[in-house]
């Protein structure tokens, strides 16, 4: 096994903290060149897995391979990591900090100097280069943090909750950089607990819960998989009465009478359309794709938010 093309492979990751199982036989692969989302509720084990990938947390068992090999010191210098709780020297100047991190990843002094300025400019904090990090707003600190993860031109990006705390402009800037890096061929894994917020950014995802893989694959395929649903609206029938014959399989949106029907089979869609057309003019008809939160709910039987609250209640963290 093992591929040389930049694929990241997680195999059988397991980690326990006392009684708590943070990672439970977690396995999935991240192909290069894609924006790959690592999703799950708070406390699902995302941070533990990411820290294990970059080598700052140990595993009870399991292996992490990149380019077909375990990640050693050489490979580490080509990883860009953005930790969940962030991490910069508060009293160090932005340029100085970026240069230092670039050099720690093996860049020469001149290259590090240029790269620090390039990435600070690219992320819109170039004018603050001589300021101390602690003097920047949190949003700008986060931009510096991303610059710190990118400054040494890493081939593997591991970003823990890069979107949390960003304003919409920041989200766009971050999304743009992630898409660009993926297009440049980097292998990328970024985590988020807000499944629906990031689903449009991701080409592929791994969704985990309780340290276990819940779903894995291309977003488009996950959305199409599962039960088939159609959404139908018949003009003049705001209560969706035409669909009563379907029983609990039909759910009516009381605002405009749109009925979402869960089908056993894609072929049943035609029957539903026929019945709707018989009841009146059909204003809308279409297949409904699952959102990632629904993918999650379909797999574990409850919504991700419930999980987050349950974990918060016992004071746990990932």
């Amino acid at each position, binding site marked *: 096994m093992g591929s040389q093309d930049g694929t990241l492979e997680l195999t059988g990751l397991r980690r326990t903290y006392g009684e708590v199982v943070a990672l439970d036989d977690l396995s999935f692969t991240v192909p290069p060149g894609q924006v790959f989302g690592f999703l799950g509720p708070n406390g699902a084990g995302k941070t533990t897995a990411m820290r294990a990938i970059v080598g700052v947390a140990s595993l009870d068992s399991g292996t992490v391979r990149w380019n077909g090999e375990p990640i050693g010191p050489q490979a*580490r210098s080509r990883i860009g990591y953005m930790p969940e709780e*962030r991490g910069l*020297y508060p009293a160090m100047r932005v340029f100085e900090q970026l240069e230092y991190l670039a050099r720690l990843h093996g860049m020469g002094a001149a290259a590090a100097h240029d790269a620090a300025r390039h990435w600070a400019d690219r992320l819109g904090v170039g004018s603050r280069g001589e300021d101390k990090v602690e003097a920047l707003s949190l949003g700008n600190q986060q931009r510096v943090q991303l610059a710190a993860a990118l400054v040494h031109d890493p081939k593997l990006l591991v970003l823990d909750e890069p979107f949390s705390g960003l304003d919409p402009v920041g989200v766009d800037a971050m999304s743009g950089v992630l898409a660009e890096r993926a297009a440049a061929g980097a292998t990328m894994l970024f985590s988020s607990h807000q499944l629906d917020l990031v689903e449009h950014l991701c080409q592929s995802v791994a969704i985990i819960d309780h340290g276990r893989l819940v779903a894995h694959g291309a977003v488009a395929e996950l959305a199409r998989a599962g039960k088939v649903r159609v959404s139908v609206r018949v003009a003049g029938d705001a209560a969706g009465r035409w669909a009563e014959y379907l029983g609990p399989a039909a759910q009516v949106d009381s605002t405009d009478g749109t009925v979402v029907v869960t089908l056993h089979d894609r072929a049943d869609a035609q029957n539903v359309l026929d019945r709707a057309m018989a009841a009146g003019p059909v204003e809308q008809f279409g297949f409904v794709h699952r959102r990632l939160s629904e993918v999650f709910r379909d797999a574990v039987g409850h919504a991700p938010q419930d999980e987050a609250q349950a974990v918060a209640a016992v004071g746990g963290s990932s």
Partner: protein
Amino acid sequence: MTGNWWTLTRLVVQREIRERTQAKSFWIASVILLVAVAAGAIIPALLSGHRSTAQVGIVGGDTVALTQTALEAGRITETTVNVITVPDVASAKAQLLSGNLDAVLVGGTEVLVKQNAVFGSKGTLAGTLAQVGGFAKVYQALPPAVAASVARSGVGLPIHGLIPPPQGLASRFTGLAVAILIYVIIITFGMRITIGVGEEKSSRVVEVLLTTLRPVQLLAGKVIGMGALAMAQVAALAGCYLALGYALGSPAVQGAAIGVVAAAVVWLLLGYAFYCTAYAAAGSLITRQADAYNATIPLQVPLILGYVLAYTVLFSGGVSWFYHLLAFVPFTAPVAMPVLIAVGAAPLWEIVLSAAITIASTVVMVRFAATIYERAILRTGGRLKVRQVLASVS
């Protein structure tokens, strides 16, 4: 330990030095220490310095010759001498003790002073009086037999202090300065290490650093960088002390005091090496800067003990067995041993044994502290206890 290992560690060292030397507090502390050390060199010079006028009594002998001797001694030492003829030795002593007279030249036999000079009499009025008086005596006693007898007993007249002088105060004074310096340098740079490590941990920057650095590289870079700064500071302080001391002719740089300064530099190195990693380990246990002081108390107490007890050694005259014991305990040896050396209470074997114990303990301490650091630096949550960390598997 490849070349790459040192390349990365050197980057950490450079960052530490750059960050510290950019901080105002570093320069303020450096200036304060420099001033203190300069005072240490200047004060003994002032204590042994020349007064502008002096009352010199003469007793017996040839009044004219003795007056001449006293005035010549005054000229050499740039002192205005008032010569007062005193009827007898007893009244001369009484006037010395009351402070009416500064020195008494007893007709061709001796010089009396209230108390012998703290740093020796060379260059003082009394010392010059004794020398000039001695030569005058030789000159008068020209007959060869007498000259030979005088030559045997020495040319200079004996100087008799009426009350006993404190023993070897020059080196005692230096000993105290050394105890303070070692204590202050180890604790200030140690605290900087603790705060620096705590800051890296609490800001979580350590998460980013340790993706490419091994914990031991970060630890080594920090203590080497701080150590280099500490040594540069010590070199500047010692240089200032010696330069000022020589320039002013201060007794603080003469004789045994130089040996004390040399011992201080060696023990400061040993002490820093022993303590620096322990301070780093303490920093790895905390998550807030405010905890830095509490976490380092166990490391400060032995140094404070060695420093405080140094006063009893330096100024009570005797060295207790307990203080000798402290010189063999690695936690207190860096302060206690230089103090013993300063009072001349440490034979060579004690010095060598104490150094050997400290070096051996440093090896053990570095391993122990590095283990704690490696296990604790990435652990989040509240403040950790050493026992908790040792019980855990990283």
